[in-house]
C-alpha cells in the first residue's frame, strides 16, 4: 500500500484536510461483496492503490458521479465529496452532537414521556390480558373460522415484519448506496426494526393452537427422533425471522457500542455508569479497533441486505406457496418487499416527526432528510400500485374463475370491497400527494400521510390474508371473517408493546448514531467554529 501525502495544490489557508480515496481490494472487500449482492455492479480488481491526499474543495479531483472506478466506497466515515452539500449544519461541533443527543436523556422524563409511556403500557396490558385469556380458553375468542383459519394475527405479523424492514434498509442498503443522510435516522430506524420484529415474532407463536408447544417448530434434538418439515414455509419463517432478529439485534448493538462508550464517559451516577460500562464492552476507540469495527460494519450491511430481502420474500412465501387463489402468486416476494419498505418508511417518518420535535433534533433530522424519505415512500407506493394492477390484470387475463372471483369481485365489488378500496386509497392514491414538493416538506402533511399509509398497509395485508381465504374453491365453504374485540385488542396490544419499547429506547439509549454523525460533520474551512465551546475547555 502506498500512501501519498500531498500538500494542497491551491495553498489554502488553515489546517490541511485530507481526503483519502481508497480502493484497495482488502479494504473494500466487504463493500465489494455487498455490491455484488446488489447486482454485481462492483468488481474490484486488486492492485496498487493510488492514494491521494487532496485539498478539500477541489471539485476537479473528485468523481462527480460517485460510481467511477471503484473509488470512494468507504465514504461512510470519510469526509464529503466536495460537490455534495453538507448533510448537517456546518456550525455543529463534535461536542454539540454529544450534547444534543444525550442531554434530552438527562434528568427526569417529562410529562409527555410519562403520558405516552403509560398509554403504551396500558395498551400492552390489554394485549397481555387477551393473550392470557386466549391461552386459557382457546383461539375461539378470535374471529377465526373455517375457511378463514388465519386472521388478524397473521395480518399483524406481516404488518410488523414489514415495518421492521425500514430499519435494516436504512442501516444496510442506504449504507451500501452511500446515502450519508441515513446517519440521521438509522439508529431510530434500527431500534424500530428490533421492536417491530419482536411484535411480529410474537404473533406466529400466539396464533398457534397450542402455543406452549411452539418450540416444536424448531428442529431441536428430541426423544421422538422427529424433526420438522423443511418443505413448510412456516419453518422457513422460523429461520428467516429468527435470523433476521438476531442479525438486526447484533447490527444495532454494534452501532451502539461507541455511543455507549461516550455515554459511559459522561455518566456520573455510579450504577448507571456501570450499566453503560458493561454495555460498551471496554470500547476505547483505538484506530486499530475502528478498522475492524468499520470492516465488520460493512460486512453486516452486506449480509443484512440480502437477508432483509429474503425475510419478506419468505413471509410472502407463506402465501405464495399455498394454492389459495389470491395467495398463489409469483409477484408476491418483490411486492411484499416493496410494501415493507413503503410501510416501514412511513412508520419511520411518523416516529421521526415526533421525535425531532420532542428531542429538539431538528438540526440532525432535517426537512431534507424527511423529504428524501417521502420520495422513497412515493416510489414504493407506485410499486405497490403496480403490483395491485398486475394482480388484477393477471386474474382477468388468466380467465381463471377462482382468481377472478377473488381479485376482482371479492376485493373490489363484493363483501370485502371496503377493505380493498381502503387499501387502494391509502396506499396508491394518498401518497401521490408527495409528487408536490410542498407536501414532501410539510411536517403535518407527511405525518398524516405516513399514518394513512400504515393504515392502508395493514388493510392491504388484511385483504390478502382474509379475503383470499374467505371464498376459495368450493362455494359451500365460503365464509366471512369478522374480527372480534379480542382481535382488535391484540392489535392495540402489539402497538403498546412497540411503543413501550420505543419509549424506553428514546429514554435510555442515544437516538442518533453519534459517532457516525461526527464522522461526516463538515467543518467550515478555517478551523473549529467559534460558536461552540470545547468540552474540556
Amino acid at each position, binding site marked *: 500500500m502506498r500512501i501519498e501525502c500531498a500538500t494542497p495544490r491551491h495553498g489554502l489557508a488553515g489546517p490541511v484536510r485530507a481526503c483519502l480515496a481508497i480502493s484497495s481490494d482488502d479494504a473494500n472487500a466487504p463493500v465489494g461483496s455487498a455490491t455484488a449482492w446488489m447486482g454485481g455492479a462492483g468488481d474490484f480488481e486488486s492492485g496498487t492503490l493510488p492514494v491521494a491526499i487532496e485539498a478539500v474543495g477541489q471539485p476537479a479531483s473528485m468523481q462527480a458521479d460517485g460510481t467511477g472506478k471503484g473509488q470512494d466506497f468507504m465514504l461512510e466515515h470519510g469526509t464529503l465529496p466536495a460537490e455534495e452539500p453538507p448533510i448537517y449544519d456546518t456550525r455543529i461541533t463534535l461536542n454539540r452532537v454529544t450534547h444534543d443527543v444525550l442531554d434530552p436523556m438527562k434528568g427526569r422524563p417529562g410529562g409527555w414521556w410519562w403520558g405516552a409511556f403509560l398509554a403504551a403500557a396500558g395498551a400492552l396490558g390489554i394485549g397481555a390480558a387477551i393473550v392470557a385469556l386466549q391461552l386459557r380458553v382457546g383461539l375461539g375468542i378470535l374471529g377465526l373460522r373455517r375457511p378463514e383459519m388465519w386472521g388478524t394475527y397473521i395480518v399483524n405479523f406481516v404488518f410488523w415484519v414489514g415495518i421492521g424492514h425500514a430499519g435494516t434498509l436504512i442501516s444496510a442498503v442506504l449504507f451500501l448506496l452511500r446515502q450519508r443522510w441515513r446517519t440521521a435516522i438509522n439508529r431510530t430506524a434500527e431500534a424500530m426494526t428490533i421492536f417491530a420484529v419482536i411484535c411480529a415474532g410474537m404473533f406466529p407463536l400466539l396464533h398457534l393452537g397450542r402455543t406452549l408447544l411452539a418450540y416444536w417448530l424448531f428442529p431441536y434434538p*428430541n*426423544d*421422538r*427422533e*422427529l424433526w420438522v418439515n423443511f418443505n413448510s414455509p412456516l419453518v422457513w419463517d422460523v429461520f428467516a425471522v429468527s435470523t433476521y432478529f438476531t442479525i438486526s439485534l447484533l447490527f444495532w448493538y454494534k452501532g451502539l457500542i461507541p455511543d455507549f462508550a461516550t455515554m459511559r464517559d459522561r455518566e456520573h451516577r455510579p450504577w448507571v455508569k456501570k450499566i453503560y460500562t458493561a454495555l460498551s464492552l*471496554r470500547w476505547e476507540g483505538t484506530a486499530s479497533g475502528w478498522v475492524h469495527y468499520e470492516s465488520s460494519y460493512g460486512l453486516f450491511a452486506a449480509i443484512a441486505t440480502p437477508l432483509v430481502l429474503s425475510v419478506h420474500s419468505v413471509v410472502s412465501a407463506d402465501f405464495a406457496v399455498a394454492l389459495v387463489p389470491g395467495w398463489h402468486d409469483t409477484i408476491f416476494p418483490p411486492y411484499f418487499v416493496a410494501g415493507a419498505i413503503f410501510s416501514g418508511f412511513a412508520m419511520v417518518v411518523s416516529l421521526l416527526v415526533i421525535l425531532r420535535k420532542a428531542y429538539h433534533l431538528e438540526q440532525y433530522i432535517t426537512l431534507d432528510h424527511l423529504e428524501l424519505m417521502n420520495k422513497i415512500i412515493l416510489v414504493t407506493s407506485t410499486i405497490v400500485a403496480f403490483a395491485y394492477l398486475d394482480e388484477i390484470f393477471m386474474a382477468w387475463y388468466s380467465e381463471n374463475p377462482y382468481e377472478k372471483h377473488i381479485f376482482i369481485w371479492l376485493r373490489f365489488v363484493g363483501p370485502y370491497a371496503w377493505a380493498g378500496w381502503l387499501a387502494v386509497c391509502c396506499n396508491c392514491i394518498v401518497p401521490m400527494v408527495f409528487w408536490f414538493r410542498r407536501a414532501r416538506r410539510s411536517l403535518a402533511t407527511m405525518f398524516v400521510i405516513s399514518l394513512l399509509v400504515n393504515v392502508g398497509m395493514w388493510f392491504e395485508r388484511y385483504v390478502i390474508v382474509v379475503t383470499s381465504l374467505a371464498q376459495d374453491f368450493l362455494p359451500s365453504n365460503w365464509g366471512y371473517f369478522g374480527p372480534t374485540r379480542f382481535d382488535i385488542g391484540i392489535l392495540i396490544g402489539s402497538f403498546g408493546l412497540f411503543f413501550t419499547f420505543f419509549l424506553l429506547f428514546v429514554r435510555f439509549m442515544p437516538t442518533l448514531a453519534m459517532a457516525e454523525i461526527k464522522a461526516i460533520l463538515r467543518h467550515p474551512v478555517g478551523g473549529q467554529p467559534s460558536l461552540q465551546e470545547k468540552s474540556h475547555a
Partner: protein
Amino acid sequence: MGLTTRAWKLPAATVAVVICVAIIVRVNGNTGYSPVQPIPFSHQLHAGDHHIPCLYCHAGAQRSPEAPIPALNVCMGCHAVVATGKPDIEKLTAAYRAATPIQWVRVYDLPQFVKFNHGMHVDAGVACQTCHGEVQDMTRVRQVRQFTMGQCMDCHRNNNYLPKPSEKPYRALAHYHGHPVNAPYDCNICHA
C-alpha cells in the same frame, strides 16, 4: 480489569442447573418407578422360580391390544389349592369370594394418543422382557425402560420381524434406507 467472575458465573450456573434438571426429568422418564401393590405379588416367585409363562396369566396379551392384568379367577385357579394359608392369599381369596376386584397400581403407562397393541408384538415374537425388563427377576415390578417414541422407533427400525420366506407380506412394505421392513413406522400405527 475486565469481567468480575461473578457476573459470568451466576447466569452460567443457572443455565447449567436448568439443563441438568431438564435432562434428568426427560431422560429418566418414569424409569425406576416401582409402586407398592395392594398384594405383594412376586413375579420373581411365579415367573422366575416356578417358570410360569407370562402368557399363562396375561393371556389377553396375545389377542388384545392390552395385556390384561389377570382376573381373580385366574389367580384362584392355582391358589384355591396352593399356599392357601398365607395371609396374602387369604386376602386374595376373600376378595374373590366377595367379588371385589383388587386395585393394582399401574406401572406402565402410555398417553391416550398412543395406541400400542400388545397382540401384534407378542405375535411378532417380541419378548415381554424387551420392554418390561427382566420381570421374572423382580419381586416388585419396576419400570426399567423409558417409554418414549424414540425407543419405539429404534426398535421398529432395527429389530424388525421379517416374514418367513413362505409367508406373504400382508402389509405394504415400508422402506427404510432402501431395505424393506415389516415393522411399519407409519404414524397411524400408533396414533389413530
